[in-house]
């Protein structure tokens, strides 16, 4: 029999026992709806958490260090010596090479210094760090006073609210001009109003820092150099005055001087949470400036000392650490492998998303199992309906066979009936599941509004779920049709026509 004839006959048969078949179809719809609602809840929650994680910037970030750096070291490596010849410097070439890696969207140096900041004649000691342009998307800047940096090299600063408080309430600040860059404060924090914070915006602070200036190391014996300029105060010390005397290859090695500099910064924003959830090294800082500007300033950092102690210092500038951002947390591992192959140590929080993904796979599995229970019950409904239908239509099946229907024709007829119920039930179920999801979203958002929290999408109905649910419903109903169809096809027309 041709497909359209089969469909026509099946439709006619379904209409004939319309009420019963509608109930069965509604059963399938309820099953599919429960599955869809469960899985869209899973998808929604996963989307929610993934988006939060993506915005936290924690899980698509890799810290890159030289092989000499303890930070990227495996625990068991810490006891062993590192062969100096294996160490690749983290210099401009390396940065360029890392930028060219697939999926890498951003590479910037980690800039972090403990230094003095002057505001309206008072000087406070605090920690300063550079922020990449991508930090704009971080949660910490979602609800900030003012705005993010206007340009990657803008002479602007964003303050942490703790530091802003110290600027505003000098009398209450402990130690008057001394603010320790420690975590969020507890206890008797001076209260400041939003208006007070806003009054800081647009004002200027002055950052005092030491600029690092490369100095070619003269041949042995190293001679002390005199001051370079009138405006800059030279801070030549034994420590910063890197000595390459021990190195045989004298003349091509580099040391540096540190020159005291001031940089004016306009306050453009104040944040009250720490970016990157306080986990990365830079997030504990209290004053942030654009990383482009921070780089241009060439500030001397504690890690620079290590560079000059290297047996074979490089002529170009070495970064203490580079922060590499990839487009997707899932790409962290390959990028990390590539970086390791280049000879660097790396650090990332990959495992957190990995186990999170595992949690969601398990959650989805459980949701799917619970959601499928109703569908399984519905599939029994299909079996029941079709078996009844076979019993009722014994004579009709016998007549069809006598008129020339093959066993396959009869089987197909029942399969099509099951499939039609599955398709209709699946489509109806998706609609129902979508409505349930909407209701959950609506209810949740009412609750969130009451709690003064932003609206979220808890239930998400992705396209794959719509298609998948209908396909699954059809598959389940066809599966349910196997037994009744086989039973119908097995009917002996001679018996049926003789006795009925």
């Amino acid at each position: 029999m041709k497909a359209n004839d089969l469909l026509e006959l099946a439709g006619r048969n379904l209409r004939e026992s319309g009420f019963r078949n509608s109930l069965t179809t509604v059963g399938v719809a309820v099953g599919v709806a429960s599955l869809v609602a469960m899985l869209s809840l899973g998808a929604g929650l996963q989307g929610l958490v993934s988006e939060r994680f993506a915005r936290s910037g924690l899980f698509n970030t890799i810290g890159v260090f030289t092989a000499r750096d303890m930070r990227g070291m495996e625990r068991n490596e810490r006891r062993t010596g590192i062969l100096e010849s294996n160490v690749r410097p983290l210099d401009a070439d390396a940065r360029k090479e890392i930028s060219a890696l697939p999926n890498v969207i951003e590479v910037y140096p980690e800039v972090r210094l403990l230094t003095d900041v002057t505001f309206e004649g008072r000087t406070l000691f605090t920690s300063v760090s550079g922020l990449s342009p991508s930090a704009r998307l971080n949660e910490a800047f979602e609800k900030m006073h003012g705005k993010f940096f206007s340009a990657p090299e803008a002479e602007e600063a964003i303050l942490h609210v703790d530091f802003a408080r110290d600027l505003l309430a000098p009398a209450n600040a402990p130690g008057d001009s001394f603010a320790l860059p420690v975590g969020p404060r507890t206890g008797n924090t001076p209260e400041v109003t939003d208006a007070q914070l806003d009054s800081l915006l647009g004002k200027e602070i002055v950052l005092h820092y030491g600029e690092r200036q490369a100095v070619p190391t003269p041949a042995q014996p190293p001679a002390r150099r005199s001051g370079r300029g009138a405006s800059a105060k030279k801070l030549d010390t034994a420590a910063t005055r890197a000595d390459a005397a021990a190195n045989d290859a004298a003349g091509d090695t580099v040391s540096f001087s540190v020159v005291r500099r001031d940089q004016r910064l306009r306050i453009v924003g104040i944040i009250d949470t720490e970016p990157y959830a306080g986990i990365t090294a830079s997030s504990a800082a209290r004053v942030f400036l654009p990383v482009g500007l921070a780089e241009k300033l060439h500030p001397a950092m504690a890690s620079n000392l290590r560079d000059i102690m290297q047996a074979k210092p490089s002529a170009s500038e070495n970064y203490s650490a580079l922060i590499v951002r990839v487009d997707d947390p899932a790409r962290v591992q390959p990028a990390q492998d590539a970086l390791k192959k280049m000879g660097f140590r790396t650090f990332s929080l990959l495992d957190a998303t990995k186990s999170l993904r595992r949690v969601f796979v398990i959650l989805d599995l459980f949701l799917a199992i619970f959601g499928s229970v109703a569908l399984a019950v519905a599939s029994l409904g299909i079996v029941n309906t079709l078996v009844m239908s076979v019993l009722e239509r014994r004579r009709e099946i016998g007549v069809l066979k006598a008129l020339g229907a093959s066993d396959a024709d009869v089987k197909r007829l029942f399969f099509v009936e099951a499939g039609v119920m599955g398709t209709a039930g699946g489509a109806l179920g998706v609609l129902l599941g979508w409505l349930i999801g909407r209701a959950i979203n609506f209810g949740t958002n009412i609750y969130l509004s009451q709690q003064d929290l932003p609206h979220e999408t808890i239930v998400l109905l992705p396209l794959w779920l719509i298609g998948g649910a209908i396909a699954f419903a059809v598959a389940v109903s066809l599966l349910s049709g196997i037994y009744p169809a086989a039973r119908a096809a097995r009917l002996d027309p001679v018996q049926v026509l003789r006795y009925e």
Partner: protein
Amino acid sequence: MPGGNGVPNAIRAENVCRHYTMGESVVKALDGVSLEVHTGERVALVGASGSGKSTLLHLMAGLDRPTSGTLETQGRNLAAMTPEELAAHRRGTVGMIFQAFHLLPRMTLEENVELPLRLAEVPREERAERVREALERVGLAGRAAHRPGELSGGEQQRAAIARALVNRPSILLADEPTGNLDSRNGEEIMRLVRSLNESLRMTVVLVTHERKLAASFAERVLVLSDGRLAAEGRPGDPAVEALR
């Protein structure tokens, strides 16, 4: 096997057996039946209840298979056919009518008659014409849109004949076609069947237990008894009459 005029016989049975196993005993519904039915012939299969006449008809219809032996229609052995080929045989070679008519009650006459055309995958545009033609032939063109329940028994059987004809089979198998009809309607049906036999040169095998019907309709009577062919001859032959 060719018949007298060189064309294959419509039906040829050779030592056909149909045994059923019922628990431990074997029921021999047919036990070595051999016969021939010529193309265009009108044959009556008669015999007592349980003699095997319906079983033989079902074998000819391709609804069942012989346990052993050869059963040919138009030179093709039904015993060796696949289920799919048997279905094709039912669709194309034979048409069947039953005592209980077996029209599908929820379909109109038109739709009932169209059913074999659907099964034979006849193109849609041809169907309406062939349905109309078949219903006209049995005199029911005006009742095409009625359901079987709205018709008399005689009309229902005529509709069933239209359904059996619509695929233009060469053999018509009739299983007690007048059993549910009064004598007037029964005679009318048999006149219709006879006219089809004459106008379409359709071979007709009639299963009946009514002597009078067999005698008035058939050119040849085959008498079955306990699954065997007990006698055969023209209606009125003493040998045939004695056994019935």
